[in-house]
């Protein structure tokens, strides 16, 4: 089997434009709560969902929109949900961290790590009721320190579940560099539970597609779970309005907010060990700086990287189609929600 670059790119572009639309709606105050975008994870979403068929299930984390969009969730219902409207995907009751699509057998949860055992459950049902169907569980690298996720790795092997674990490694968990609180390496950790694990560059959709193909194939054939560790960027910070990213966006304002208390701590009495306090200030600065460096220097946009797989014409056509589709869906949603007039 060979990947279909157009299909993959379409999935990615639709996902990206949806994230952008969400961002705009959020800025306008039409979306509440913590809005975690999956911008940067499109290649993972596309490469994995391209292998899914009807009856396959997805267990999603707090960045659940790209897989749902890539898989074809109704966009108007999705946006209406974000707007808290009763015609939304979940009647406005779930919101972005709790998107449920029974048709797509897909459910998300904001509790870090919970997608893995949920995925086990989906896979168990498939094993029993629909042999040949599979489940996928998406989660971040920070989640791999969560007990129920680690248990799920074992459970899936013990029960030989038709499940693919997809770890989106963006190296960060909110403001924590995951490496600093994680022992060992994650692919090895997964393997130690007795399943194959592959590392892929999660910004290269064709690589993800390949790895996911093998894993899904294995699951369909009844040979049990696999683990895919896909590195990918966190293009919009932890969530929209991430205060650490604001340091870059509005350096003056944020420095004024964060600075004075820090300085107060630096010089608070008794002044013991002042010398050792300064490097700590450095630690904080470094975290912020690292975030910035990764964001502005190191990170690769999966869409840009995948564009090379297509002719320029195809890329432009797909993007235009996707952009229009998303714009129309937003429009329809705003109209239904009676927010059209406000559409900026």
């Amino acid at each position, binding site marked *: 089997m060979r990947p279909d670059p157009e299909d993959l790119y379409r999935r990615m572009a639709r996902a990206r434009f949806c994230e952008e639309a969400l961002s705009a709606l959020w800025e306008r105050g039409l979306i509440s709560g913590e809005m975690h975008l999956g911008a940067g994870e499109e290649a993972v979403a596309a490469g994995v969902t391209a292998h899914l068929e009807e009856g396959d299930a997805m267990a999603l984390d707090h960045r659940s929109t790209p897989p749902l969009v890539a898989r074809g969730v109704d966009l108007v219902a999705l946006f209406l949900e974000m707007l808290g409207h009763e015609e939304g995907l979940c009647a406005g*009751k779930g919101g972005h961290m709790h998107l*449920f699509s029974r048709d797509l057998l897909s459910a998300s949860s904001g509790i870090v790590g919970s997608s893995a*055992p*949920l995925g086990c*459950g989906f896979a168990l049902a498939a094993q029993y009721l629909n042999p040949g169907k599979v489940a996928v569980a998406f989660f971040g690298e920070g989640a791999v320190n969560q007990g129920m996720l680690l248990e799920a790795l074992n459970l899936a092997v013990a029960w030989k579940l038709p499940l693919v674990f997809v770890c989106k490694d963006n190296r960060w968990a909110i403001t924590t560099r995951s490496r600093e609180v994680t022992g060992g390496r994650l692919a090895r950790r997964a393997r130690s539970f007795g399943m194959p694990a592959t590392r892929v560059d999660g910004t290269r959709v064709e690589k993800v597609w390949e790895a996911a193909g093998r894993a899904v194939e294995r699951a369909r054939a009844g040979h049990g779970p696999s683990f895919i560790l896909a590195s990918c960027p966190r293009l919009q910070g932890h969530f929209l309005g991430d205060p650490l990213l604001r340091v870059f966006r509005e350096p003056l304002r944020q420095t004024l907010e964060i600075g004075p208390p820090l300085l107060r701590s630096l010089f608070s009495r008794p002044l013991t060990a002042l010398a050792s306090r300064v490097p700590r200030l450095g630690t904080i600065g470094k975290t912020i700086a690292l975030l910035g460096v990764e964001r502005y220097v190191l990170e690769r946009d999966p869409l840009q990287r995948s564009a090379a797989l297509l002719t320029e014409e195809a890329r432009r056509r797909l993007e235009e189609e996707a952009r229009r589709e998303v714009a129309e869906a937003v429009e329809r949603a705003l109209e239904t929600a009676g927010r059209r007039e406000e559409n900026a």
Partner: protein
Amino acid sequence: MPEMTFARAIDFALETAMERDERVVTFGEDVTMLRRDLFVRFGPSRVRQAPISEAAFLAAGVGAAMAGLRPVVEIMLVDFIAVAFDALLNQATKVKAFSGGKWNVPLVVRASCGGGYGDAGQHEQCLWGLLSGMPGISVVVPSNPKDAAGLMLSSIECDDPVVFLEHKLLSDYWLDYLGLGGRETVSFDVPEAGARGEVPSPPVPVPIGKGIKVREGGDLSIFSLGVSLHRCLEAANQLEDYGIKPAVIDLRSACPLDRELIVSSASRTGRVLVVDEDYAGYGLSGEVAALLAESGVKADFARVCTEEVIPYARRLEDEVLPNVRRIREAAVRLCALSP
């Protein structure tokens, strides 16, 4: 109606459900042995051994239920639910609400509960209070074989999450495993009427959320469930000597509570005693008090509950769990208040 043990009645109902509906499966630690009769009949895919990973396999139960199975997940002792609490609090009970009513979770959590055999407070808790404190859940606590079978059937038929609690003092194999160990040198205060009794065959569903008056009386309403219900009946017998005739109500479900029955009985007698083997604070007794108060029933009220961590020593344990003496004394005091 055949007579059977409390324990057998539950498995009989589960077996009946598994026979009728292919989608009913059960999994948990040691179920191959614990449910060996079902295992032999239905095989390893429907009676499935789990690793000691309650958090994962209970949450897997949620996913399995969402995707079409009707799992009965065993958490050996309800105390262990603490390691899997997220699966109930943030997953199972949230799906229906968050999905706008479009998706539901027909999950049964089955766990043994309760004390009275000297295992101390990390293995003898009841916890139906904790479990009832979240929207979207039902919690049932049968006190006899017939209700046990009927409630298990209803739990499996229910389209939303239900916790089914099996009191170890009523359940012969649990008591043998954890308490007796085949010894004849120890004994436990097992309520006979709870541990053995007639069960319709096939079992008849008992509605979740419906209590039942098991003893008539006009002086006082005693509300209870599980093993404590039997302690109440014993106390009620003794109360005759004091000229007190209590009504005794088996609530059967801790959640939802049978508001109508509670209110009507309390209005009639004007005196309420809640007897609860679970913890006193933030529990069943409080919820009964609130139901009554908000219904405008101003009854005299007392409660006999477990007030502290259950101690190991049998003698101390017996004082901490609601016993017949404490129930009787509370009832007598209550009736003396407003003679």
